[in-house]
């Protein structure tokens, strides 16, 4: 390993290859309950360095896991088979923003919110409103094919890629697309790399479609005694043709807890709704708001509130965004984990039942649940809230995630619609996609990564016994065994 470290240092400089144990430990986590320690962290600053690093890794069969902000919710940036963390966070330049061509050219380490603020300063937007904000990098967002809160209106980020530069394991620098708005030239490889979670190649540049920022916006929220009414209201908004950015629901337990902790005075309810929308002028916005407000009230929505300023906006979004703050107030030591049942999707007509039943499944095992739903697109975000020091909670979480995924499949849903498979869903992939699809995926992986060293242990592509019966939180999986010795 010493010889390899020296080779890496000759490529990127001594200070950019980190091997101290304390730093390797710091890179061993993301939002999942697993812990995996790399053997080294390498910072790269340009495409040429990535080509050379991949060359050395390939020659020596060393696993290499790309990492931007390390904000993955499903373990995709964890080095579960050890090896190298390729830290792309210093490739963080916005290379160009073109208002005329409506494209932005960025390096993978650019943070989402930093990017969005720069765009907004120029009257533009990359409008997905990715939930991890400035924790996420563009490279990670593209490699995860993220949704963001505004996926209801704008879809996943993958379809916003006009072009990209990807370094392949054999050193090829693949250029896909241009700043021309559309291309349709054979297999859509941009779509393949979007969501590939670093298992096929390293994204080193992206040409992204951008749009004008609408000048006015608002958030609207209301409270429902019955989740069925809430979902009916949400669907009526969709059918009205009003182009909301997002339509969201939060379960009653969460709304009531947050209201109590933050002293917000929300009415007791089975769930609350929040949506946001934009307008090209005030009159346009007010017209849309009046339609949404009437629909919410006609379906039994109480205390329908419209927010036009930051303070009120935060209050309306609090049930959706502040559970992590509230839970440590109510139950010190508790936290949320990225687990396998974090992003299932169900048919629109099943959403209300799914919110209730999934919450009930989690609670039946003695841990707490918060359940969120992107009501326009059927995606649910169950959150387990538990004490990571309690082994019974760990066992409860493992049972709950299995039951939830079986339930979701039983009602015609799918197990992963937003975060991707990552590491946490490894043991559920084959059942979810079937042998034929998984075998095809493995053959695609084989084309790009015949040695199986690009982010190994992910997406169920090469799952083995190491991924089964994983131990208790954080002592769960240590790729580098010497850390515990």
């Amino acid at each position: 390993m010493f010889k390899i470290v020296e080779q890496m240092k000759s490529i990127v400089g001594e200070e950019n290859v980190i091997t101290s144990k304390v730093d390797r430990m710091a890179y061993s986590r993301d939002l999942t309950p697993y812990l995996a320690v790399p053997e080294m962290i390498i910072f790269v600053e340009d495409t040429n360095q990535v080509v050379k690093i991949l060359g050395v890794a390939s020659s020596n069969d060393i696993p290499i896991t790309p990492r931007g902000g390390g904000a993955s919710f499903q373990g995709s940036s964890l080095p579960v088979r050890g090896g190298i963390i390729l830290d792309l966070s210093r490739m963080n330049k916005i290379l160009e923003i073109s208002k005329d061509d409506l494209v932005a050219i960025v390096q993978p380490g650019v943070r989402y919110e930093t990017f969005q603020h720069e765009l907004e300063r120029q009257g533009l937007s990359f409008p997905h409103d990715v939930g991890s904000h400035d924790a996420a990098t563009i490279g990670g967002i593209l490699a995860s094919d993220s949704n963001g809160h505004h996926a209801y209106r704008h879809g996943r980020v993958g379809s916003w890629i006009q072009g990209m530069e990807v370094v392949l394991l054999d050193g090829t620098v693949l250029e896909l697309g241009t700043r021309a708005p559309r291309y349709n030239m054979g297999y859509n490889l941009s779509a393949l790399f979007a969501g590939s979670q670093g298992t096929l190649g390293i994204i080193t540049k992206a040409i992204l479609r951008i749009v004008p920022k609408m000048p006015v916006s608002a958030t609207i929220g209301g409270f429902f005694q019955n989740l069925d009414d809430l979902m009916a209201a949400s669907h009526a908004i969709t059918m009205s043709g009003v182009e909301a950015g997002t339509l969201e629901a939060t379960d009653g337990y969460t709304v009531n807890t947050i209201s109590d902790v933050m002293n917000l005075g929300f009415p007791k309810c089975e769930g609350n709704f929040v949506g946001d929308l934009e307008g090209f002028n005030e009159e346009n916005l007010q017209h849309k708001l009046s339609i949404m407000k009437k629909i919410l009230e006609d379906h039994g929505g109480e205390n329908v509130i419209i927010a036009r300023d930051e303070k009120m906006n935060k209050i309306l979004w609090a049930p959706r965004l502040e559970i992590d703050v509230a839970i440590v107030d109510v139950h010190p030591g508790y936290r949320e984990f990225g687990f396998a049942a974090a992003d299932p999707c169900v048919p629109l007509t099943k959403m209300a039942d799914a919110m209730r039943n999934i919450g009930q499944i989690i609670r039946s095992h003695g841990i707490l649940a918060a359940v969120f739903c992107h009501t326009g697109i059927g995606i649910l975000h169950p959150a387990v809230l538990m004490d990571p020091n309690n082994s019974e909670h760990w066992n409860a979480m493992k049972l709950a995630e299995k039951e939830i995924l079986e339930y979701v499949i039983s009602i015609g849903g799918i197990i992963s619609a937003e975060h991707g498979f990552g590491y946490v869903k490894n043991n559920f992939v084959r059942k979810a996609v079937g042998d034929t699809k998984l075998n095809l995926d493995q053959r695609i992986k084989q084309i790009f990564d015949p040695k199986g060293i690009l982010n190994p242990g992910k997406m169920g592509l090469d799952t083995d016994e190491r991924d089964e019966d994983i131990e208790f939180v954080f002592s769960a999986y240590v790729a580098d065994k010497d850390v515990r010795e």
Partner: protein
Amino acid sequence: MPIEEYRHVIMECVSCGLCQSNCPIYKQTNLESNSAKGKMTILYSLLQGWLDWDEVAERMYECTTCKNCTATCLSGLDIAAVVEAARAELVERGHGNAISKDIAKNLRETHNPFGEGSDARERLKELART
């Protein structure tokens, strides 16, 4: 208070990384060990016995305790308090940082944190008058 008393805060960190882009140290290095998230993992490893006190010392001193991380923390955690507790225990265990030792020595010997003589104070007075 020993760092063990902060175990629950260390465990409450969800490792989301919202602490990174506002951290004045992380912004200089992009090293996750310098962000609050990295520090909580380091301290967790210390509590588990995977790291020793001397190994974590340097990273614990690389913090301004400005609380920018608390301002953006998903769980609203007071990271600076944890870091200060770690530092206090580091000092007790003989791992005080070199700069603090120099400052203490200078104060004892010259009554000036930079080790400058009394003429430095006179020069400051002169500057204040102008």
